[in-house]
């Protein structure tokens, strides 16, 4: 009885004495179990409310309680916020606004100087202490800001009622969009104001302050001496207040979203805001410029709200906005918008289309790495436009074209995405490093020494990231111009027509790689490596091998022979060789790679372990079973402790080890290990997983080898549809599975099923693979079935000869294929041909002939009238059978057939 059952049974007994007796009786001498269960029973009866109240309820309500507990304080605070009331040294005069954060008052400062200021009272409901704490942390930086277009934040504190407040320069102005419309500013006048705003933001960024909430109502324009002067207000407040509780802004308990939706950058629409940086402000500036030109932000508030909160955030993160000119041309209010900009609709649209569109869209890139790097950079580009100089922004980015391409070419683009994915991975890695460094910098801010070190690290990371980015950009441009561009209509630059496949596109592009990267051998090596590996995954082994070989040559020349990149190249090249059937080449290269990896990376490095597994597979394939076994046994132990027993990498090796046991005839070990592997992988990875499917395939093959055909069929049958779906019907693993299933049907005598599967295997095998051994095996196996199947309806001697002839033509030295051909010819009545083929096959065999040949030869000779020769073969065959007791039914059927033909009596 297990612990739980014992516990439950005992718990049912109410009387303590009876219960103790019961436990005593059941546990017997197992005193520790008795004590353990007794202990658990005691705990359970004294558990009180432990776990009774759900965790979520507790967490959620406690956060709400802090909100709910406040109404009294709020009420009293309201009462005292009236004109004339003093808050520290500020006297409230009149309320001049109500913002998302709270009410804004005009106030009179009395000390140390007398002046009018704006005082912002933060709404109740925020944690005042943290607001003030964050404000204090930011205060020094804020004090460093000194710019004519920035309203300074002068002070901050807490009202007697406990509400935080901030004091700022008083700006009597209108939000920039309203001001421009009111004064019917032309687009050029608007751009001029916008440049000033950018410069202000640039100034703040240089002082280390990010605004985080740039929007028209935070950019006020007032006339000073008849000159419009924009002032950016509320710098630093978004960070200090963090949580803004309005209908337009969001706050969360888990990850805060700060900002106003329409102006919020995609990264601010994420729940993890650790890495908001200056580029978020660039995005908001982009929205501002968009609105100044087109009359509304890219995602209008109404649309966003209609969509619901989550959808809004998704739109911000993912949806590409339409260009300002497009937005304008479809706007109902176009005449009004144009009038407000002192121009006509057609002229306005034309003015914005092109370069201004590009500038805005560059600022609005979802990927902040593609935005302007600085607010100053944005301002300069706008300035360039005004001076009629070429702008830095480009039309439709390559990534954008890739997405378009993807929509048109769902199939082929898989390869392209794969390619780009691999190319971009390097950059992402280094960017992550940069983010980490940035994070370190933040943490260390208060510790100067650390800060200097962190800043240096950050700089280094940034430079590295930039270098990698430049490399990726070069690659990306190549892929874009030479490969993605191939999807353009014929006649256009690089265009090969819309229905071009990625394979075709790559074929055209491949010769260009050399000249294009003549001075960047490592970039060339990386591109060839990536292209080659992608092709290998797609089953294009020849191209893959060629590309990876060239990559390896470059890397060997320009990198150390044991550089990890070189080693990765060697490893993948060996895999290509293996896939092409060049197992000896693969093994040699793998042995070399492994030695280098062990020395350079260590014996337990994941790469080394992967290389060991690959080598073991090669050993197993060439029949070096003991070597394979040893490698796999060692590796399984290491991987179990390093990755855990359920890691796909561990499971993969366990699966291969089970295969080794099977090959060595250790069938009980094989079954035990394989069963465990399947259970673990199903549990951990699920059924719809490649590793799981391969493990199940192995288990089925072990059942087959053990003669447990029904079990084998059950497994093969169940995984076949999944393989077709997940790996594809033409994938080599799927096809191998089908062959195994057909063999099992044959063993069970289900020849109709066998035929169906074999035909399907041949039909689904990709044309490009038709010379591979697997494909020829398909042919000969079907030929054998058609020649020797006991079911006459299935037999088809003519076709059997055709299939076998095809296989023998491609591989004239295969004893197996020749034997198949001999059988087919015998069945077709071509006795002499049959004798020739079978004798040729026997010659190739190290072990000479056996009954599978001699019975058929006997019948061939008999038909030809050479009865002596026939009898000689027949006797040979019978003798061999008595000695070797073959289990293959076919040989028994041959014997029966020969007996009948030659009037012999079968036993």
């Amino acid at each position: 009885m297990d612990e739980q059952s014992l516990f439950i049974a005992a718990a049912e007994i109410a009387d303590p004495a009876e219960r103790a007796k019961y436990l005593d009786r059941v546990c017997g001498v197992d005193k520790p179990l008795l004590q353990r269960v007794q202990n658990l029973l005691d705990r359970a009866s004294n558990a009180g409310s432990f776990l009774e109240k759900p965790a979520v309820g507790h967490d959620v309500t406690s956060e709400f309680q802090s909100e709910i507990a406040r109404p009294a304080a709020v009420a009293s605070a309201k009462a005292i916020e009236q004109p004339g009331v003093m808050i520290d040294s500020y006297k409230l005069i009149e309320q001049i606004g109500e913002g998302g954060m709270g009410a804004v008052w005009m106030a009179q400062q009395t000390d140390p100087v007398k002046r009018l200021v704006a005082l912002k009272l933060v709404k109740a409901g925020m944690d005042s202490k943290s607001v003030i704490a964050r404000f204090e942390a930011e205060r020094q930086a804020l004090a460093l800001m000194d710019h004519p277009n920035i309203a300074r934040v002068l002070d901050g504190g807490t009202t007697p009622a406990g509400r935080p407040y901030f004091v700022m320069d008083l700006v009597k102005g209108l939000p920039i969009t309203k001001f421009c419309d009111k004064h019917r500013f032309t687009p050029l006048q608007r751009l001029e104001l916008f440049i000033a705003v950018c410069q202000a933001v640039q100034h703040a960024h240089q002082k280390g302050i990010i605004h985080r909430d740039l929007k028209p109502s935070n950019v006020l324009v007032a006339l000073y001496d008849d000159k419009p002067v924009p002032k950016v207000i509320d710098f630093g407040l978004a960070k200090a207040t963090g949580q803004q509780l309005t209908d337009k802004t969001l706050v969360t308990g888990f990850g805060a979203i700060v900002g106003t939706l329409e102006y919020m950058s995609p990264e601010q629409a994420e729940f993890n805001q650790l890495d908001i940086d200056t580029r978020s402000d660039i995005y908001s500036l982009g929205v501002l410029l968009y609105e100044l030109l087109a009359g509304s932000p890219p995602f209008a508030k109404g649309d966003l709200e209609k969509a619901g909160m989550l959808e809004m955030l998704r739109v911000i993160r993912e949806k590409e906005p339409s260009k300002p000119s497009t937005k304008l041309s479809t706007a109902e209010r176009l005449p009004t918008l144009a009038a407000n900009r002192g121009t006509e609709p057609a002229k306005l649209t034309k003015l914005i289309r092109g370069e201004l569109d590009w500038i805005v869209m560059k600022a609005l890139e979802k990927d902040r790495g593609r935005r302007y790097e600085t607010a100053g950079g944005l301002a300069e580009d706008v300035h360039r436009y005004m001076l009629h100089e070429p702008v830095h922004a480009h039309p439709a980015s390559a990534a954008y074209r890739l997405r378009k391409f993807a929509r048109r070419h769902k199939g082929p683009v898989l390869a392209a995405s794969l390619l780009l994915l691999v190319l971009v991975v390097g950059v992402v890695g280094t960017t992550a490093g940069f983010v980490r460094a940035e994070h370190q910098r933040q943490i260390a801010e208060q510790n100067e020494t650390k800060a200097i070190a962190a800043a240096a690290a950050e700089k280094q990371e940034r430079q590295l990231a930039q270098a990698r980015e430049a490399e990726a950009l070069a690659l990306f441009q190549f892929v874009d111009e030479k490969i993605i561009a191939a999807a353009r209509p014929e006649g256009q630059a690089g265009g090969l027509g819309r229905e071009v496949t990625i394979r075709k596109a790559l074929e055209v592009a491949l010769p260009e790689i050399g000249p294009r990267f003549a001075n960047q051998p490592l970039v060339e090596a990386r591109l060839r490596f990536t292209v080659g590996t992608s092709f290998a995954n797609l089953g294009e082994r020849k191209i893959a091998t060629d590309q990876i070989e060239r990559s390896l040559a470059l890397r060997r020349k320009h990198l150390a022979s044991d550089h990890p990149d070189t080693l990765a190249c060697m490893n993948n090249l060996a895999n290509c060789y293996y896939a092409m059937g060049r197992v000896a080449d693969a093994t040699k290269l793998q042995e070399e790679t492994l030695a280098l990896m062990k020395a350079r990376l260590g014996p337990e490095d994941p790469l080394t372990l992967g290389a060991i597994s690959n080598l073991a597979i090669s050993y197993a394939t060439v029949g070096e079973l003991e070597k394979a076994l040893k490698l796999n046994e060692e590796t399984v132990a290491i991987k179990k402790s390093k990755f855990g027993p359920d890691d796909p990498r561990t499971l993969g090796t366990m699966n291969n080890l089970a295969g080794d046991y099977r090959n060595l005839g250790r069938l009980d070990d094989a079954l035990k290990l394989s069963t465990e592997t399947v259970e673990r992988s199903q549990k951990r990875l699920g059924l719809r997983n490649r590793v799981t499917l391969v493990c199940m395939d192995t288990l089925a093959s072990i059942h087959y080898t053990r003669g447990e055909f029904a079990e084998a069929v059950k497994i093969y049958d169940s995984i076949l549809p999944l393989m077709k779906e997940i790996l594809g019907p033409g994938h080599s693993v799927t096809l191998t599975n089908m062959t195994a299933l057909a063999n099992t049907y044959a063993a069970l005598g289900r020849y109709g099923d066998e035929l169906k599967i074999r035909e399907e295997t041949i039909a689904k095998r990709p044309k490009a693979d038709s010379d591979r051994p697997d494909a020829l095996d398909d042919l000969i196996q079907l030929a054998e079935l058609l020649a020797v199947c006991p079911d006459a309806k299935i037999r088809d001697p003519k076709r059997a000869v055709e299939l076998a002839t095809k296989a023998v033509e491609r591989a004239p030295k295969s004893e197996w294929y020749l034997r198949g051909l001999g059988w087919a010819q015998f069945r077709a009545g071509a006795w002499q041909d049959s004798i020739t083929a079978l004798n040729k096959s026997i010659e190739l065999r190290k072990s000479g002939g056996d009954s599978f040949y001699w019975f058929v030869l006997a019948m061939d000779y008999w038909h030809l009238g050479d009865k002596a020769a026939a009898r000689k073969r027949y006797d040979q065959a019978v003798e061999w059978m008595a000695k070797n007791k073959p289990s293959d039914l076919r040989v028994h059927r041959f014997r029966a057939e020969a007996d009948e033909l030659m009037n012999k009596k079968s036993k």
Partner: protein
Amino acid sequence: MSPVEATSKCLYDTLARMSDVTRILTAIGEGDPSAPAQLLPLVYEELRRLAAVRMAAERPDHSLTPTALVHEAYLRLVGAQAFDHRGHFFAAAAEAMRRILVENARRRTRARHGGNLQRVDLDSVAPTAPDADEELVALSEALDQFALVNPQAAELVKLRYFGGMTGREAAEVLGVSPRRADQIWAYARGWLLERLESAD
């Protein structure tokens, strides 16, 4: 039979992720044992967003309960249709909720122990008793250990404690009688208390 190559695996994973909740639930209905695992990341994301947005509401909805949150996620991801296998959804939701809460608690605990209150990140200002966070993390770890020896009982705790389900609902998900679920519940509480207290 054939080598497990790691290279192309990511491709299939990506394809698998494209499945939506409805399809996964259908797959569960068809007996696909791997489908529940695919459910988790989707439910997790949705609950995270949902909880975040709910808590963002200026006027918190007083009727908000964990069950309500999970049911709302269900409506959003699946719609009003009833699936025979919706229990799997709630099981995934319970696990998702656990991860969310534990991550949160860990973050807050780290922030507190960091000794630098001023630079605490924005998402950690929500006041919660410090002990509660540490207890939650400890409980979750104990639950992981429990799941190794008694997966069913651990699942029950997850459904009730993290999924906010009643004993009856949880029993239904596990496919046991309510009485049986109560018996297992008693055992589970005893086991976890023992583990937590002996760890002190």
